[in-house]
């Protein structure tokens, strides 16, 4: 085990290896639906008691009949149009048969592209920006299906003595979006998923912030070797970690001259490793066949035209608008629109403070860095647009220095307190009084006689003394004034000598 973990560290920095091929199967819950895909049970299962959102249909009781949720088809059409996929005139539901306890029916209603099956949409693409370059990731197909139940394990799945099943999630509407193997690294996979999530959130069909709303399976191979499927990646955050582990594992196998088996592996997010499932199941063992209890879905050109009209502004269009309207760099606009909440935050700020460039700079540097450091999303942080704007205004009117603001921001993120509250509480007011700074400057000069001497011939010594003054005031001194006063005092001293 320890060996495996070491190899992760070695390879985790790897990016854009030409021999890595990754394809994703993304499962997105249609969280804007109030009910499940084929029955009227409430879809609001989060935080509810287990097994309380069930009816004869989602329990698969004999004689019960599923009926498709009309809105799920509209949602799927919106996603298909946003991803430039071709919507099928006629699509069918299929049964995927298997005996795990995660579906009470012993099959999952899904769609299929073989054995006469037709998914709701095929083809399409998503453009992503990685290292300032644009790249198209092709979509293979989009299909509607049921979410299986949630399985609860005690600790790691590997050692849990048994499984607890909560069927509330069984039957929730999922959209499965399958890519072509166009991704070259774990980073590209992350960027793609971020973009996809942003598109779905702009459409308003899926809220990725909800736990388990977006999950994915990944297919990965190295050096044209065997393809390995990783299942159970429970959140987009985990994808990069799971892929990095798997790339490292396959590289380690290759370097030892061992063959990578074609297999399905499970991402254990407790142990942070992939585990072989040693499955004996093949694709044909799922015995896909048309679901006899559901009728085909037919979509007319008129219906497509109607849905096209209600597609809202999508991330790419929003990016262009940000560049044109707010005059911010395309790269910055790309980062901001890769997360709907982030883009909304930005535009909220601009309503309160029209200097878009300043807002974008604070968001792109300090705000993003702190969110990244704390590994949270902007929606999870306690900072609001009002906070950020208030902080910038405090800098503008000279209440705090820019440097102090940098330390105020993480405080806001953690506590949700307003910038003024934090500044008052922590005594961070800027020292802008000439008299106060002069007194402190005198102290610095007395305490650093060597630097004072050197200052006559060495510019660096002057900067050192200014630095000491800033340090003494914990960054609160007005930097320009500090600069000016130190220089004046040095001049005076050298004259008097």
């Amino acid at each position, binding site marked *: 085990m320890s060996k495996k973990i070491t190899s992760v560290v070695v390879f985790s920095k790897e990016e854009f290896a030409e021999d890595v091929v990754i394809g994703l199967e993304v499962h997105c819950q249609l969280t804007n*639906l*109030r*009910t499940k895909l084929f*029955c*009227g*049970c*409430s879809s609001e299962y989060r935080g509810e*008691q*287990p*097994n*309380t*959102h*069930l*009816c*004869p249909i989602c*329990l698969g009781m004999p004689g019960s009949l599923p*009926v*498709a*949720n*009309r*809105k*799920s*088809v509209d949602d799927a059409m919106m996603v298909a149009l946003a991803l430039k996929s071709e919507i099928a005139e*006629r699509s*069918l539901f299929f049964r995927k048969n*298997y*005996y*795990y*306890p*995660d579906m009470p029916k012993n099959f999952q209603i899904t769609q299929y592209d073989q054995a*006469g099956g037709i998914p709701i949409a095929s083809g399409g693409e998503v453009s992503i920006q990685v290292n300032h370059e644009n790249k198209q990731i092709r979509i293979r197909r989009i299909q509607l299906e049921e979410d299986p139940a949630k*399985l*609860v*394990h005690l600790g790691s*799945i590997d050692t*849990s*003595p*048994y*499984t*607890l*099943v*909560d*069927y509330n999630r069984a039957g929730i509407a999922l959209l499965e979006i399958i890519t072509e193997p166009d991704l070259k690294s774990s980073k590209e996979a992350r960027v793609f998923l971020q973009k996809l999530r942003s598109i779905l959130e702009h459409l308003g069909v899926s809220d990725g912030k909800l736990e388990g709303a977006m999950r994915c399976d990944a297919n990965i191979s190295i050096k044209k070797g065997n393809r390995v499927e990783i299942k159970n990646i429970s959140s987009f955050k985990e994808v990069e970690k799971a892929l990095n582990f798997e790339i490292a594992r396959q590289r380690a196998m290759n370097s030892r001259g061992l063959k990578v088996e074609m297999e399905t592996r*499970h991402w254990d997010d407790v142990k942070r490793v992939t*585990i072989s*499932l040693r499955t*004996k*199941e093949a694709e044909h*063992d799922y015995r896909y066949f*048309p679901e*006899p209890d*559901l*009728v*085909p*879905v*037919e979509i007319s050109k008129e219906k497509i035209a109607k849905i096209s009209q209600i597609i809202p502004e999508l991330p790419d269009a929003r990016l262009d608008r940000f560049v044109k309207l707010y005059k911010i760099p395309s790269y910055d606009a790309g980062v901001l629109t890769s997360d709907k909440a982030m883009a909304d935050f930005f535009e909220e700020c601009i309503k309160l403070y029209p200097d878009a460039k300043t807002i974008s700079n604070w968001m792109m540097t300090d705000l993003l860095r702190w969110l990244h450091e704390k590994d949270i999303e902007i929606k999870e942080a306690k900072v609001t647009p009002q906070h950020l704007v208030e902080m910038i205004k405090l800098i503008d009117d000279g209440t705090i220095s820019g440097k102090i603001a940098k330390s105020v921001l993480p405080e806001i993120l953690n506590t949700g307190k307003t910038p003024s509250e934090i500044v008052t509480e922590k005594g961070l007011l800027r020292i802008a009084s000439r008299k106060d700074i002069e007194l402190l400057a005198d102290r610095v000069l007395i305490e650093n006689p060597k630097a004072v001497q050197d200052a006559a011939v060495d510019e660096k010594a002057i900067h050192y003394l200014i630095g000491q003054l800033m340090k003494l005031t914990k960054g609160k001194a007005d930097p320009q004034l500090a600069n000016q006063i130190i220089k004046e005092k040095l001049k005076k001293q050298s004259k008097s000598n």
Partner: protein
Amino acid sequence: MKKMVSISEKEVEHIAWLAKITLSEEEKKLFTEQFNTILEYFRIIDELETEGTPPTFNVQNLENVFREDIVEPSLSREYSLKNASKKEKGYVKASRII
């Protein structure tokens, strides 16, 4: 006419594994025989000329039957879990599966 593949005892074992059931040696023999008899009927059906006939996936001749996205009451948990042989804290207890 297509050549019909026959089912071996090994395949019956695999199907039993998929269905999570255990078969005795006699049962394996019995099912292998029965599966092959069933497949014989398909061989007869297979003799029909179906070239150019579109496959039938649905006999009702209906399409686009939908329900509106309106919440309906669910069953009580006690009722839903009546058939479950093992329960714990409102969950159904199952053997560990990956």
